[in-house]
């Protein structure tokens, strides 16, 4: 049984980080990290699929509201809820995820967690940027945004995962 408080805190912290920090980055038009996806990435492995789906929906709607996304964050976030389990199964093997736990470098191993994280971020960011651009002529630009923003998101989510799964936070 996982306590809800750390996840409520994580949800709020990620939403605040996204709205007040990452949305206002003025470094490059190619750099638009979407770190809020860490919430779905870090949900317990054995959480019921319906709860994962509704959590992803709540996250998508919250981000659409705060970012003025009109549905685009929900479109990109919902598939993660469905793909999460098959991705974990194919990367870590069924026997390794049967016991549940919070996906983290410690729980899955650094290599497996990184592959899982990269796959989740890649799917989410690709959907987000393709739907946002909706243009073949802008494909190189869309791919550039996907690669750069995705790489930066993976870096930040890795850090967030380390902080979230640190013993002090887990005991909350």
């Amino acid at each position, binding site marked *: 049984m996982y306590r809800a408080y750390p996840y409520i805190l994580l949800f709020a912290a990620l939403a605040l980080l996204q*709205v*007040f920090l990452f*949305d*206002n*980055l*003025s*470094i*490059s*038009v*190619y*750099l*638009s990290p979407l770190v809020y996806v860490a919430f779905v990435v870090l949900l317990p492995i054995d959480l019921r*699929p*319906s709860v994962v*789906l509704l959590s992803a*929906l709540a996250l*998508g709607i919250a981000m*659409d*509201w*705060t*970012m*003025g*996304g*009109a*549905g*685009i964050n*929900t*479109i990109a976030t*919902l*598939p993660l*809820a*469905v793909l999460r389990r098959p991705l974990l199964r194919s990367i870590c093997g069924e026997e390794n995820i049967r016991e549940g736990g919070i996906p983290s470098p410690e729980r899955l191993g650094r290599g497996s967690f990184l592959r899982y994280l990269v796959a989740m971020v890649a799917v989410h960011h690709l959907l987000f940027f393709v*739907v*946002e*651009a909706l243009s073949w002529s*802008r494909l190189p*630009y869309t791919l*550039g945004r996907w690669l750069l923003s995705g790489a930066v998101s993976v870096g930040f989510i890795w850090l967030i995962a380390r902080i979230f799964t640190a013993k002090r936070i887990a005991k909350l």
Partner: protein
Amino acid sequence: MYKLIEFLRRIFVPLLFIVLEVCAVVYYARSSVYTQAKLLTRSNQAVGAVHGALTGVRRYFSLGGENRLLLERIATLEEELFRYRRMTADSLREVQLAGVEAKPYELSVARVISNSINKSRNYLVLDRGLRDGVEEGMGVLSPEGAMVGRVVASSERYAVAMSILNTSFKASGKIAGDDYFGSIYWTGDDRYRVRMRELSKYARIGEGDEVVSSGFSQYFPADIPIGFVESFSLAADQMSYDVEIRLAVNVSQLTDVVLIRNRDLDEIRQLELQARSMKN
């Protein structure tokens, strides 16, 4: 019966996912820049105060630069004042003042509390809203007078402006001192440059020429600086130029903006509505 319930239980999550995803796609497909701006306006009623506080901190560190700009502006105005004082003929002065009164545009200022440049559709959130007289349709300029965007939605305390760095933003522009005009738009991949298409091949154009608003827009008066010609080439139809323009404003550095209201906008819109209803 048991098998049916078991089957429904098994497909419940995928089915719910498909329903939710379709709803999100339909909502997004029906949305426009105005939908997004309205969402931003509503969310800023909740988070606008925090944005304002963070902007205050950022502004503190840019005070030196702002002071320098203010001094430059004061110097320019002092120069104009000096020239004005030298005008000895009272009649000439009266003509000038009458000209100011007759101008159909009204200016006000606002602070930028949130500004994105890394999306296809970028917006600026301003700390002035309906209670300050800021409403949809007002043009947004930089403190130096360059084109920045236009207000697309406003709440009581905040307004959301569509940035010139928004792929849905369109404006009419021309080479300063020339009459041929073209359509200004942003391609989405460079925050320092926009493009102008459909500029007649008879236009007098050269690299470094200033590009200004044509005055055909309801939102901006004529001769508002947009940028400078960086390169140009004939379009595929050989009848018009495609022009790359370096923007006169660095949108990512904006902390304050000037809002410009066309006093005749309501009248123009009413006339347009009448014309449309007559057509129908």
